[in-house]
């Protein structure tokens, strides 16, 4: 039973790593422009297809794949910001929400047109699915890589945010955009940086998704995107550490609900997940690590 529980926890952490990476982008972008970018999950999809193209079609090695996914993800984020969100600055918040939905629908349907809706198998190098020997539970190399890469990226992000000039500008902008401008901070560039970094992380999450599950399709980003949004909200939308925490908690909750509930109740999983979410929010109306809500949508 302990190894069963341990296995569930490990599985939850792996799933949580991917949610966390996507959730961070939600929170970063929200923190600065007060925009929930629903197209964020679709960038994970684009990351996954980029991996497919670079690795399978072009046959390049894994580090190049990771780099390509980071670059393409960041570029997509910048493109979306430029085309859809920059013209909206100063408009009511809910407009940004709707625009991001429109962008999401746009990306998904263009992807279906170009790639067909049919899921594809993605064959990553076989050594990635090697089981780590000598453990009481089942962990593959790819699982370790996912968690390590996710944690490394998160540490990198925390360093950027806390230790660099850009990070300082981002935090200042998130806290008070007008005063940040009075300090000479180029807010547009800061916003672009948030989109680029957040989207690059989402792209990597998509890469991880395809490496772990081996199957991708044009609408694969929607549901994880929605869940990562939920994770960001649990953590306190706008808070980067909150998003990480929220991502891991949601990953764990999802796996543990399925793992610990009797199978007959498995169908109620989403109800449990969202029920818990509502309870958490009732106790902590601003999420686990969020500041008092300053805005209404």
């Amino acid at each position: 039973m302990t190894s069963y529980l341990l296995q569930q926890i490990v599985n939850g952490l792996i799933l949580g790593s991917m949610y966390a990476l996507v959730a961070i982008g939600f929170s970063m972008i929200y923190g600065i422009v007060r925009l929930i970018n629903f197209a964020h999950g679709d960038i994970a999809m684009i990351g996954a297809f980029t991996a497919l193209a670079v690795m399978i079609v072009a046959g390049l090695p894994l580090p190049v794949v990771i780099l390509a996914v980071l670059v393409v993800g960041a570029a997509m984020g910048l493109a979306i910001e430029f085309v859809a969100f920059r013209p909206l600055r100063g408009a009511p918040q809910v407009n940004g929400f709707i625009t991001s939905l429109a962008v999401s629908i746009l990306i998904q349907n263009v992807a279906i047109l170009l790639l067909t809706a049919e899921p594809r198998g993605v064959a990553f190098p076989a050594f990635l699915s090697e089981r780590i020997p000598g453990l009481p539970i089942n962990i593959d190399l790819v699982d370790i890589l996912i968690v390590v890469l996710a944690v490394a990226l998160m540490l990198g992000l925390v360093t950027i945010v806390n230790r660099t000039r850009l990070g300082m500008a981002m935090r200042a902008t998130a806290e008070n955009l007008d005063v940040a401008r009075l300090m000479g901070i180029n807010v547009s560039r800061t916003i672009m940086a948030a989109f680029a970094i957040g989207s690059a992380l989402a792209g990597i999450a998509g890469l991880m998704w395809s490496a772990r599950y081996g199957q991708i399709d044009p609408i694969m980003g929607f549901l994880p995107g929605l869940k990562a949004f939920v994770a960001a909200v649990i953590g306190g939308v706008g808070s980067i550490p909150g998003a990480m925490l929220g991502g891991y908690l949601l990953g764990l909750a999802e796996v543990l609900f399925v793992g610990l509930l009797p199978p007959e109740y498995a169908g109620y999983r989403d109800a449990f997940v969202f029920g818990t979410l509502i309870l958490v929010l009732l106790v902590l109306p601003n999420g686990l690590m969020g500041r008092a809500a300053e805005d209404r949508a």
Partner: protein
Amino acid sequence: MRTLKTIAAAGALATGLGAAAEAQETVTIAALYNLTGGMSSIDAPALNGALLHAALINEAGGLLDGTVMLEVVGIDTKTDQQETATAAQQALSMDNLVAGIGYGDTTFVLAAAPAFQEAGIPFVTSGATHPMLPTWVGDHMFMTAFGDDDQSYAIADYAYDTLGLRRVAVWTDDSMDFTRALSTFFRERFVERGGELVGDDFFMMGDTDFSAQIARLQAIDPAPDGVFVSAIPGEAGLSVKQIREAGITYPIVSGDGFDTELVSTVPGPDLANDVFFSSHTYRADDRQVVSDFVAAYEEEYGRPPENAFSPLGYDAIGLVAEAIEAAGSTEPSAIRDALAGIRDYEAVTGMISYTRETMVPPKPVAIIEVQGGEFTLLETWFPDEVE
């Protein structure tokens, strides 16, 4: 896709030119499918199959000695039932409509077919498999595929008799009617044969992570002989990959939801082993109609049929065409009667006859094995003779 358009245009042109010589008409078949949204990976291949068949028929000179050309109008219902209801009415407002086809899922058929029934136009579902469909909708409802009971019985029999499985765990996609029905019929038959069910587990469509179910599967003591996974293509490859990665080696059995390349490509050839599923008799089948279909499909779309729904879409058009020929008329009521009278129509997915009272065609069921990523036809199962 481009070639299809040209063929359709050529057909229309032929219609126009021939009109002077002899009475030639183009009849419309509305094809309702979810071409975007969550169900599109099931439905889009079916429309491809349907369009292909209509084009081939037109190319070969049409029906009723060249007097009738087919035009298939695909309608996207966006995995949305409001769109489905609207699309059904749009279809029924079309000129020269003789029949409707569509959908790989029962719930969408039930949102569209009643409108056809009411209007007196036959509706042939290409992929829905609920055995009660014709009973629920009425005498204008026809199925291309076998019923879920038949395919579940087939694989249950095979699992019990040939694979020798006695203790089986059942996984069910709890969010879909199709997968729930499949599991119900499997359990029923397997227990009836004397097998034992040692675990029931569930997941939801769109799930990608089966680690909890796998952990529970591994916790069953003593271990089962096999696991029945009732899933649609989206989850088929994922579940096989993860079950095998967890080191579980006993057979995985399933129904036609597993009839997709994903079962081989997602786990990869090293892990895609000992998977057995029941499906429509086309995969790994050497009948002439099958090889012709696969060749034509590859030529048209540049890839092999994505899953079993593409030959089913192809066959749905085949059924309507056969009925037009048999009726010698393009009157919807005559076509309906001819459809009901179809016996031994050699479809890509197996022989179709509407002999049962339920109007579910008693089709042969193929048992397919996947080893090393390769699909092999093991045997063909025939439903119990009724009537």
